[in-house]
């Protein structure tokens, strides 16, 4: 539905699930991206393509820059003083460089939403939590809001649990439910990409499993970028995996290939637990 016809870049890559080759569109293309906190360079010459309607995992030891890279996608770094982007993250179909200073970060965030490490629902009702993104962009029609809130909650597999208590505070839910509420909030605005920053690190194994199922099912309709410190999680949910180390992209490719036959020594060391 979203801009398939206008995308100029298409590449054939093997799909890890089916083993067959499927045609995938490039949703976003990172070109020679550098990122600085003050004088410290956190990302070095990143080049990679993000494929549409797939889950791409970013892995690597802590401090490798995976979260930094993720946060470039919705310009979260703009909230921190003395940060600087160099290079490009081009977003298709309209081929706009989303890290360019000329592009309004709010415009970027309206297209690319995010789910954070710790569930961070607003201390508002469940309904208002989900509706917030729509309200800030001026949706006032009650019927439309109701419909999209329900759709988002269904999309986050939370609807059945909360449909009778939409007026209760979001903070009263359990940890796993809170995180699914945050996912619903991210889905409600019909984003092109959803970013996940270690979304299960604060959750128990059962809640983690339900979030992972959700991420896999989302990939049919939205592009997902997920940072995880858990390699098994990357293997379970992602189609593509990027391994980063010290601010550089070391290796990037289909997940099953990387986990079975890593090309780089450092990737293999990390995957076998020699560091990280």
């Amino acid at each position, binding site marked *: 539905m979203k801009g398939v016809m206008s995308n100029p870049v298409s590449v054939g890559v093997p799909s890890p699930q089916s083993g067959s080759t499927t045609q995938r569109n490039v949703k976003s293309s990172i070109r020679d991206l550098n990122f600085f906190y003050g004088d410290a360079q956190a990302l070095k010459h990143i080049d990679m393509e993000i494929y549409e309607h797939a889950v791409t995992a970013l892995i690597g030891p802590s401090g490798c820059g995976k979260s930094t890279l993720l946060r470039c996608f919705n310009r979260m770094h703009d909230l921190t*003083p003395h940060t600087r982007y160099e290079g490009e993250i081009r977003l298709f179909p309209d081929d706009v460089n989303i890290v360019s200073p000329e592009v309004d970060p709010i415009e970027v965030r309206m297209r690319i939403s*995010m789910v*954070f490490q710790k569930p961070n629902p*607003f*201390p508002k009702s469940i309904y208002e939590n989900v509706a*917030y993104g729509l309200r*800030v962009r001026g949706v006032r029609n009650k019927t439309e809001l109701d419909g999209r809130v329900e759709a988002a909650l269904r999309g986050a597999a939370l609807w059945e649990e909360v449909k009778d208590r939409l007026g209760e505070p979001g903070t009263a839910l359990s940890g796993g439910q809170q995180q699914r509420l945050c996912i619903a909030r991210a889905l409600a*605005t019909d984003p092109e990409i959803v970013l996940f920053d270690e979304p299960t690190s604060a959750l128990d194994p059962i809640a983690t499993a339900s979030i992972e199922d959700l991420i896999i099912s989302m990939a049919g309709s939205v592009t997902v970028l997920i940072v995880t410190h858990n390699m098994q999680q990357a293997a379970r949910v992602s189609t593509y995996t990027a391994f980063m180390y010290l601010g550089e992209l070391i290796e990037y490719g289909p997940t099953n290939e990387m986990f079975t036959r890593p090309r780089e020594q450092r990737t293999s060391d990390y995957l076998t637990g020699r560091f990280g």
Partner: protein
Amino acid sequence: MASLSPPLAIDASHATVADIRANVAQRRRWDLVFAVLGLLATSIGVVTLLALFIDLVMDGYQRLTPDFFLSFPSRRASEAGILSAWVGTCLVMLVTAVVGVPLAVSAGLYLEEYAPRNWLTTVIEINVSNLAAVPSIVYGLLALGLFVYALGFGQSILSAGLTLALMIMPIIVVATREAVRAVPHTIREAAYAVGATRWQVTRDHVLPYSIPGIATGVIIGLARAIGETAPLITIGALTFIAYLPNPPLTTTPPFVNFDWLWSGFTVLPIQMFNWVSRPGTAFHANAAAAGIVIVVLTLLMNGFAIFLRYRLRKRINW
């Protein structure tokens, strides 16, 4: 301090269990003595508060009749009342709240949510903390020179309200900043991440969640303003006011008028000061009665603010 050192010298190599126990018991005794002293010192404040209140009540309770609230000041102590004083206090507080609260809350929001880290922000921050330290009577001098004469507001309710608004501004700014800072960063990120603008984040999240904290500061600030005397005396507030300003609400359109802003006035603490500083004891009962009213008012406000803060600390669980 010498006496506090262990009285039993223990030779470590030959200390018996009995020696050690004796030594510990001796030192523990000092702990107890000190704890009792500390409790005494702490209770001085509480005892003073009680003594002060009992003293006021003993001196003034028989003057606390309905007539006392409904009479103007008078030459005869038994006929004098605080009508013009409490009306004046209400009107001055109205100006103070309407001007001071939005000004201070906006300043606090700016400093916490908007201000870039640069020299200008530093200058503003230094100014706010300096203003908090300026003695209240200096605000009175400022008002005398600026509001009363330079701007020509005269010795009016407007001048008084503005003076107190400036005086309590630092209190509310500090409370606002603390309340705003307590809103976790993850909440702001969540709102930004769905495309909210800075003002939307501030208006929809930061401000609503910090309202209880801000309210605490506002109430404490207003309580301070209600009890404040010195700056209002300095601007030359008259102490004998036997009339009421025109009421702010009227029965004829446009239903509001602002004449009262320019009216002369007195307030409760000034009325009390007037009575207490008269020679002879006839008016002292009046002063005590006015004192009861002021103390009850300010203690209720402070108590409410403190209650609000303690409840707040327990309630919010991010």
